[in-house]
């Protein structure tokens, strides 16, 4: 039992290392992404700062920064899906499933690969957040880290799940955009909860149950933007999201791999 667990972890870790290494190989792609994310931050932050009603959002740049933290995880963790998609098309997956490892370790390794990509990519933005916002205390750091782990597990699992739905590269790209749209525009990343409730009415809870909203809520609390936050609801919700998506990824990835 303990040996099994040890075996699974080493195998998953080795699989994840492969994905991590490849992530840093795409250095130009990475640089482009970072530039884009920072541009998002500045554009939204500086421009909306003067436009949005100050009684709704006092300081838009402090409001949007946690959203960008979440966006950075989405961007980086979701790349694991692209990798898996290319492998499926070129049948490199045949190689992966023939290796002397368990299918569980393979999926866990891929998800872990996405998580590590997400966390490492996010580090720079966390530093930026510390500079822009209130530096968190240790307990808040733990909360932030937990949120980052959960949201990156969710995003990498989701990307793996979605990519197995079709082998058509264009449809994969379309799905990715759709996910981005649903998760980011139907969330509290760009507008506050109050605005969501006012505009979306009965649909508002959908936006608030989104994993992105939950993570952003925790980030806002962690970096001192908001104080009144239901931590139990948001952490438990994120945990639920990550568990559900991991299970889904496991089921679909494996079903797709072995025909």
């Amino acid at each position, binding site marked *: 039992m303990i040996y099994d667990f040890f075996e699974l972890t080493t*195998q998953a870790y*080795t*699989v994840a*290392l*492969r994905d991590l*290494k*490849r992530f840093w*190989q795409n250095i130009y792609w990475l640089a482009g992404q970072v530039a884009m994310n920072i541009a998002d931050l500045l554009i939204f932050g500086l421009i909306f700062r003067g436009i949005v009603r100050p009684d709704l959002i006092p300081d838009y740049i402090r409001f949007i920064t946690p959203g960008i933290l979440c966006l950075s995880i989405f961007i980086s963790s979701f790349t694991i899906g692209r990798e898996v998609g*290319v*492998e499926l098309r*070129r*049948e*490199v997956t*045949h*190689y992966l*499933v*023939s*290796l*002397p*490892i*368990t*299918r569980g370790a393979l999926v866990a390794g891929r998800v872990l690969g996405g998580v590590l990509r997400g966390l490492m990519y996010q580090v720079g933005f966390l530093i930026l957040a510390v500079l822009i916002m209130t530096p968190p205390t240790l307990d808040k750091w733990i909360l932030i880290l937990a949120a980052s782990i959960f949201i990156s597990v969710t995003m990498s699992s989701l990307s793996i799940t979605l990519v197995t739905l079709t082998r058509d590269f264009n449809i994969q790209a379309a799905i990715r955009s759709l996910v981005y749209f649903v998760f980011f525009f139907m969330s509290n990343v760009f507008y506050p909860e109050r605005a969501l409730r006012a505009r979306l009415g009965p649909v508002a809870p959908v936006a608030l149950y989104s994993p992105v909203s939950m993570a952003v809520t925790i980030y806002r609390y962690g970096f001192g933007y908001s104080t009144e936050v239901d931590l139990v609801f948001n952490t438990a919700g994120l945990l639920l999201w990550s568990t559900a998506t991991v299970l889904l990824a496991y089921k679909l990835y494996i079903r797709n791999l*072995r*025909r």
Partner: protein
Amino acid sequence: MRRKAVEIINFTKKFGDFTAVEDLNLDIYENEIFGLLGPNGSGKTTTLLTIATVYKPTSGDIYVYGHSVTREDYEVRKLVGIAFQEPKAMWIDKAIDLLTWHARIVGYPREEAKRVVREVMELLGLWEHRNKYFYQLSGGTRKKVELAKVLIQKPRIAILDEPTAQVDVLSKHALWDVIKKLRSEGTTVIIATNDMFEAERVCERIAIIYRGKLRALGTISELKDSVPKGDIIEIQVQEELRDREALRELEVFGRVSVNSDMITIYSDKAEEKVVDVIDALRKRGLQVKRIMVKEPSLDDVFTYLTGAKLRE
């Protein structure tokens, strides 16, 4: 009795409505070099991928040292290593990184992995290509990288899907030696090929499959003996034989198979019949360019079992 390494029982694999392999039964014994021989699309790769737990059988099962590929796939994978027909790798990986990762995932500790990768790469003449990206490697070199994976892994059962396709003649001989050495170190080797020369050089027992079905099984000499009429008359005619009547006339001498301008007749007492055969062809207005009487080769066995195109 030798121990069975792989037991294929009533194995059928369908892709949608198409049956790629049908009701295959086959035993592969421990520590032999077993050849799976068949023309393109006959189901070799499908069978090998199922042994390697990449595909699932549609019905029937395959056992690897008693472990079922459907129910105990992980146990099976611990025993099997495969070199794919189409090399499988991401193009942006360097040859050495690819193989080092492979060594790690099959269980070597870090330092040990580096050592074994270097050893195998040098053995296959890959060391000088170690820092090339996979997409920069030539076709034959990619095949060698694919084979290197199995040599690094040293599995109980090595599956090699056309290991020397795209490989130059000199390298071919070297690879055959490497494969034989792998066997002498205790590995059971299963090779898919459509290269008769390779099969004759390397394999001890051979299964011939055609259109998803097993057509013959045995050692090379057993297969040669299985051609019912021991002699072979090979006739090259001026132009392709399209005349079904002429074909039927030739069949009084034995089983006939036609491949463009080559007519092969499986017969006995061939020397006595040659004159009659030429006569029969002349009557049909067919000019004989060349005629030869010989013992069957593996090629002939293969043609005998799979090649009678006009009959089907």
